[in-house]
């Protein structure tokens, strides 16, 4: 197809219609924000790159261009901290891409006979629909902006514990004594939490985002989430104030949206990341020097651990346990140490399935861990 610039823009807006309807239908701001982001990236590329570079666009080019746009949208999504679950975001993107193909090759040529020879311009009705799509997206974003949670900037040190009972965004500062989150749609960004039994404690809440949060000197858990859906991104957990500490603990959250722990650095705790009866994506974290387990996916959880680096864990690097089902891929476990109590399941095992657990492992790197990859107590490991 040899698109005109107007044809490119109107066709893109029109073919976003299914994704936009889904986004509106599921009542999630992230979905509307994501559709807007996809359109913004696509339209920018249309104007600045595609129109100049592609006098004629063969059908096969839709695939590499789609992957290019996916990469840009994903990077922008992370940069703008759009709190979208990865699978949902990919699903919405896939829907938009497939819609674009179906619209360009089937729907629009059926609706307007001249579609191809008009350079992809869908005609008056199509143009009106495209404008409606654009207005809906802008209106949706405006609505999201209008009802967005208030942002509170902390300066200096605040004596806690703080209890958050309404949706809000808390930015910066140091909070002593911990933060309790009891409301949905709460975001902590670049907050340092010092002390407290729990650094950040999230209960009965979802769409909670902890972005670049630092926690230290806590006595039990740096981040604790119970019956919650949380995204913990690029956190730092160091200097625990006791021997029974956990870096990030997510428990009993099966009824909540999937949680995610990514890009965190956790040092010197008893368990680095621990899940119980939850669905959690644990990815790209760096866990160092744990005294019991590096990453523990347990109690009938359905979790995925990928791209993590676990160093110098005592006993076990990564474990899938207690009737859990886990995907453990692309992780690196180095220097898992023998516990010394004679228990073979703690004999410096890099990756382990324990007590009726089912683990699927693939493409992990195991270095200097004498227990290797092993299953115990009626568990299975599928490679």
């Amino acid at each position, binding site marked *: 197809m040899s*698109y005109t610039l107007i044809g490119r823009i109107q066709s893109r807006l029109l073919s976003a219609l299914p994704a936009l309807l889904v986004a509106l239908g599921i009542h999630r701001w992230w979905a509307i924000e994501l559709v807007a982001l996809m359109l913004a990236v696509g339209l920018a590329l249309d104007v600045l790159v595609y129109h100049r570079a592609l006098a004629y666009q063969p059908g096969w080019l839709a695939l590499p261009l789609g992957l290019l746009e996916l990469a840009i949208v994903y990077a922008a999504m992370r940069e703008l901290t759009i709190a979208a679950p990865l699978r949902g975001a990919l699903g919405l993107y896939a829907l938009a891409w497939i819609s674009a193909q179906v619209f360009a090759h089937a729907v629009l040529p059926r609706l307007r*006979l001249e579609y191809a*020879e*008009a350079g992809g311009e869908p005609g008056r009705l199509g143009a009106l629909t495209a404008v409606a799509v654009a207005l809906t997206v802008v209106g949706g974003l405006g609505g999201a902006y209008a009802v967005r949670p208030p942002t509170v900037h902390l300066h200096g040190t605040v004596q806690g514990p703080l209890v958050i009972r309404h949706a809000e965004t808390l930015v910066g500062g140091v909070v002593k004594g911990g933060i309790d989150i009891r409301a949905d749609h709460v975001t902590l960004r670049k907050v340092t939490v010092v002390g407290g039994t729990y650094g950040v404690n999230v209960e009965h809440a979802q769409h909670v985002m902890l972005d670049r949060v630092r926690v230290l000197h806590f006595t039990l858990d740096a981040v604790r989430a119970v019956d919650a859906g949380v995204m913990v991104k690029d956190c730092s957990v160091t200097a625990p104030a006791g021997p029974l500490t956990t870096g990030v603990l997510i428990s009993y959250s099966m009824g909540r949206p999937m949680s995610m722990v990514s890009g965190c650095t956790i040092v010197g705790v008893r368990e680095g990341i621990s899940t119980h009866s939850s669905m959690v994506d644990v990815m790209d974290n760096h866990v160092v020097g744990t005294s019991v387990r590096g990453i523990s996916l347990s109690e009938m959880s359905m979790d995925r651990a990928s791209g993590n680096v676990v160093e110098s864990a005592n006993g076990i690097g990564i474990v899938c346990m207690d009737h859990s089902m886990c995907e453990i891929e692309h992780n690196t476990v180095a220097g898992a140490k023998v516990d010394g109590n004679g228990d073979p399941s703690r004999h410096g095992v890099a990756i382990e399935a324990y007590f009726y657990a089912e683990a699927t492992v693939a493409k992990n790197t195991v270095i200097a861990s004498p227990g290797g990859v092993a299953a115990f107590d009626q568990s299975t490991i599928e490679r």
Partner: protein
Amino acid sequence: MASARCAIVGSGLAALATYTTLRHGGVAPEEIVVFGTHADPTSVWARRAASIRQQHMRSESDGHLAAAAFPGLAVREAARRISVRPLLQTVTNRYRPTVDAFLADAERLRSTSGWERSFVERRIARVRAVDGGFQLDGEGSFAHVLIATGHPGLARVPGAVHAYEPHEYAARVAIVGAGMAAATEWLNALAAGSEVVSIRRREPLRRPLNLPREYFSKRGLESFHRLAPPQRAVALHELSTPSYPPGAAWDEPIDRALRQGRLRIVGRSSDDAQSTAWAEQVISATGFTAGFAADPLLADLVAEHALATHDRWIVLDSDSTVPDLTDDVRTLSLAGVAGQWAFPASDTIAGAKYAARAFLRRVCRTR
């Protein structure tokens, strides 16, 4: 015929494309009359294709005569064969429907569109503008007329058989021309065991379609339509350079024959007479006579109504209508090769549809 508003003069591929487009737009068979000499709109074209033993179309998946581009021939073939191969070929621009598939699809359209109800076997020799429409050789007055009489005739070389006429191949063959038909004939003659001399005035271009792809859409057409008449005529002359598609299917047998000395290439000069004397058979793959003056109906129309022309073309609006004879209540459109002033690739299926869609827009507007 009394209720007919639309007339199509001509009964070839462009006529069928126009007819299916009008029908798609909701125009009833009783509102359309097709005047032509062949009840089967594919017969003339099919005879030419058979003469050069053409197996595949040069056009792609959307090179069919239905009004809407989707579903194209690749989709239909994929469904028929339960295979994704045609779809993969079409997204990589490698799909070329077979002539048989194209003809079968044309027959499906002819038989389901109501063509027989509108067809009148009659050669129209004169079109005259009258109040509110056009008089067609005493067949009545029509508000909207599309002329699709096709190529006016074969461009012949004296003493040669034309490629588009049935023929076999002698042991020594000279083939005049350098376009798609000529390239097809080189391969045909070589496959028949002949020695071949290709006589050509200029080197053929290699491109998948008759014209660069941007000329099939508004993106390229807008700048073409902005050209002043002299520049537009120059552009049309340049675009008429003979061409055939790139690809190993063409190159390998040609290169092999050149290496073996079974194929020689000579320019049209003094070598010309020597080559034709050497040959037992001369095949003229030189296409068609060009220009409105070679078509008696168009020549008469121009003379009678003093229509604007430039070089060998009738000057048309960008929607393929004759501006001097088209207004709010009547339409005179030219489709096929006569429509090149509006659409350079007008003698292709895409060109036929371009004129047909514009014609439908005008018919619907005045309904």
